[in-house]
C-alpha cells in the first residue's frame, strides 16, 4: 500500500489486487468498490464473507483473491473475523508469523448482513475492539436471492417484496450513525464512482487499528433495474443529489468529504432506475417524489 496520501487520480493504484473472471453481474457497482478498496489495501488480507452475491466470487475452483477467503453465515462474519484475528495473533505470539507478514481481517458483506442479520455480531465485535475492517457493499436489498427489501432499502423503492404504487414503506436505516454510536476507530461512506475519495478513506482506515467500517453504496444493475453501463453515472448522481453523503467519522468527529453544491434534484437519480419507475409511470407521483426530496433537503439542512 502506498504511504503517500492520494492527492489526485494519478496517484491511484495502476495494478489490480482482485483478478477478473468473477461471476458478478456485468456492471456490478459492489465489485467496482471492492476492487478499488483491495487495490489500496493490497494482497495481505483474509476476506471473511457472509452469504450474498459476493460469495460467488470464490466459486470453487476459482478465486479472484490472492489471499485466503472464508465463507460464513449471514449473521456471523464479524465472529469469523474474530477467529481469524485470534489465530493470526497466536501465530505471531509464538513467533511463527513475522510482524511484516501479518494479515488484515476484512469482513465483506452485503447490506442484508450489515444492516440486519449480522448487526448483533457486528455490535459485539466493535464492543470487543476487534481489529478488523468491515467492507459493506450496499445494494439496498437482498440481491443474491432476487432483491427482496432489506433494512437498507430506500423509501419508495420497488423490490420483489415491495411492489405496488408506493414501493417500500420503510425507511433506510442509518448504518453510519449506528456504527458511529459505538465510537469505533473509523467509519466512512464511499462509492466506487468516486475512486479518489474511496482510496483516501481506505488508506486512512488501513493505517488505524480496531473496528473500521467502509460502507459503499453499490449501484446494482440487476436489483435496481438499469443498464450495466450506467453504474458510474448513477453512483455520481447519488452523490450529486445528496442522497448518498460521503463522510467519515474519526476521533469523535464527523466530516463530510464531499458537499454537493448546488444539489441536483433527486428526480435525476430516480428516473434512471427501474425500481423507481412507478413514481413516474403510468402517472407521476409528485407527492412521493417531493417527500424523497424533502428528506434529502432536511439531512443537508441539519448538517448545516
Amino acid at each position: 500500500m502506498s504511504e503517500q496520501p492520494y492527492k489526485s487520480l494519478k496517484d491511484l493504484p495502476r495494478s489490480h489486487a482482485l483478478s477478473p473472471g468473477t461471476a458478478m453481474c456485468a456492471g456490478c457497482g459492489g465489485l467496482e468498490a471492492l476492487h478499488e478498496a483491495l487495490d489500496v489495501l493490497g494482497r495481505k488480507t483474509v476476506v471473511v464473507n457472509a452469504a450474498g452475491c459476493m460469495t460467488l466470487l470464490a466459486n470453487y475452483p476459482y478465486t479472484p483473491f490472492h489471499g485466503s477467503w472464508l465463507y460464513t453465515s449471514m449473521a456471523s462474519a464479524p465472529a469469523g473475523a474474530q477467529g481469524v484475528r485470534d489465530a493470526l495473533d497466536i501465530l505471531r505470539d509464538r513467533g511463527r508469523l513475522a510482524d511484516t507478514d501479518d494479515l488484515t481481517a476484512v469482513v465483506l458483506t452485503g447490506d442484508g448482513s450489515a444492516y440486519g442479520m449480522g448487526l448483533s455480531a457486528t455490535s459485539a465485535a466493535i464492543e470487543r475492539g476487534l481489529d478488523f475492517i468491515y467492507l459493506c457493499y450496499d445494494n439496498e436489498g437482498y440481491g443474491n436471492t432476487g432483491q427482496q427489501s432489506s433494512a437498507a432499502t430506500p423509501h419508495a423503492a420497488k423490490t420483489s417484496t415491495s411492489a405496488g404504487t408506493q414501493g417500500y414503506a420503510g425507511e433506510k436505516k442509518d448504518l453510519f450513525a449506528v456504527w458511529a454510536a459505538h465510537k469505533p476507530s473509523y467509519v466512512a461512506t464511499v462509492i466506487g464512482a468516486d475512486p479518489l475519495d474511496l482510496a483516501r478513506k481506505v488508506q486512512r482506515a488501513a493505517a488505524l487499528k480496531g473496528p473500521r467500517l467502509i460502507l459503499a453504496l453499490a449501484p446494482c444493475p440487476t436489483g435496481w433495474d438499469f443498464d450495466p453501463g450506467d453504474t458510474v453515472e448513477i453512483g455520481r448522481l447519488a452523490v450529486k443529489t445528496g442522497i448518498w453523503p460521503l463522510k467519515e467519522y474519526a476521533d469523535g468527529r464527523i466530516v463530510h468529504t464531499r458537499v454537493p453544491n448546488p444539489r441536483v434534484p433527486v428526480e435525476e437519480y430516480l428516473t434512471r432506475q427501474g425500481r423507481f419507475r412507478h413514481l413516474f409511470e403510468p402517472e407521476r407521483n409528485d407527492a412521493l417524489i417531493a417527500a424523497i426530496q424533502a428528506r434529502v433537503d432536511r439531512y443537508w439542512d441539519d448538517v448545516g
Partner: protein
Amino acid sequence: MKTAANILGDALFATGYEVQDAPRYGAERRGAPMFAYVRAADRTIVERGAIVTPDLVVVADAGLLGIPAAGVMQGASEATWLFVNSTEPAQAIRAQWRYPGQVVSWPAGFTPPAMHNAAATSASCAGAAARMLGVIARETFESALIAQSTGRSAGAIETTRSQGLAAFDAMGGVDRCVPEGGEHPATPPASPDWIELGADDAALAAPDIYAQATSEQARTGLWRSHRPVIDYEHCNRCSWVCSTLCPDSAIRVDEDRTPRIHYDHCKGCMVCVLVCPAHAIRQVSEQAAQAQEIEP
C-alpha cells in the same frame, strides 16, 4: 430471453395449451448467457427440466453461435428450426455454423420508429417464435404482449406491442413452419457413456486450493454482446480512469500508461465507454468484431 419465453408461454396458455416456461441460469449473476425453455402441449406435459430435443431454437444474441461452450445448438437436428436475431442472411448463417436444420434470420427489435432495447428484442423474438409455431392467433399474441408490460408507460407498452407484432407479421412466409414435436415419454434418460477414471491422489486430482487469483482462467468474455474498443489515437493516457472504474479489473495499464482491455474477461458492461474523459472508447457489436478478427 426470459421475457420472450414468458410472452410466448402466456400466449400459448391463452390459446388453450398446457405450458411450461422456465429460465435457466448458471451460477453467474446477470449478464452471462442464459436459456429459457417453453414447452406446450394439448395434453398433460410429463417432461420436466431442460429441453433436450427442441423443435425451435430462438437465438437473441447471434454472437453466441460461434461459442461452443454456449451450447445454443445442443440437441438440434435436421428437424429443428433455428431463428437468429441477425441482419445476416439465413443461408449464410446456416453455412457458416453448419447448422443441420432450417434457419430463419431477422433483426429483432429494430422495426422503426422504436429504439432498440432489451424489451423490444424480447417482444420481437417472441413474435417470431409465435408465428413460426403458427398456432397462436394475432389478437391472442397481442394481448400477451400488452399483459407483459402492465404498469409501464404508454410508450413502453407500445414498443413491446409494436415490436412483437412486427416480428409476428414479418414471419408470414414461415407461418406454422415448426411442426408439432413427437411424443416425449417420461422415461428416465439413458445413462451417459461414462469413462471410468481411476482415483487419483487428492493432491493431483483437486485443483490447488492455495493457488492465487485462479479466476483468471474463467473466461467471462463470453458474456459480451458488445465490446469496448480503445481508439489509441484519441486515448490521452489519462489517469487510467477506465481501468480504475472497470468493475471487473479487465483493463490493465502498461508501464507507459497505455490501457489494454483483456477481452478474455471483459463482460461488455460499457462502463469504460461511458466514463472515458477523452471519449476514446467505442462500443462495437461483438459479432462484427469477431467477424473482423476472422477476415480483417
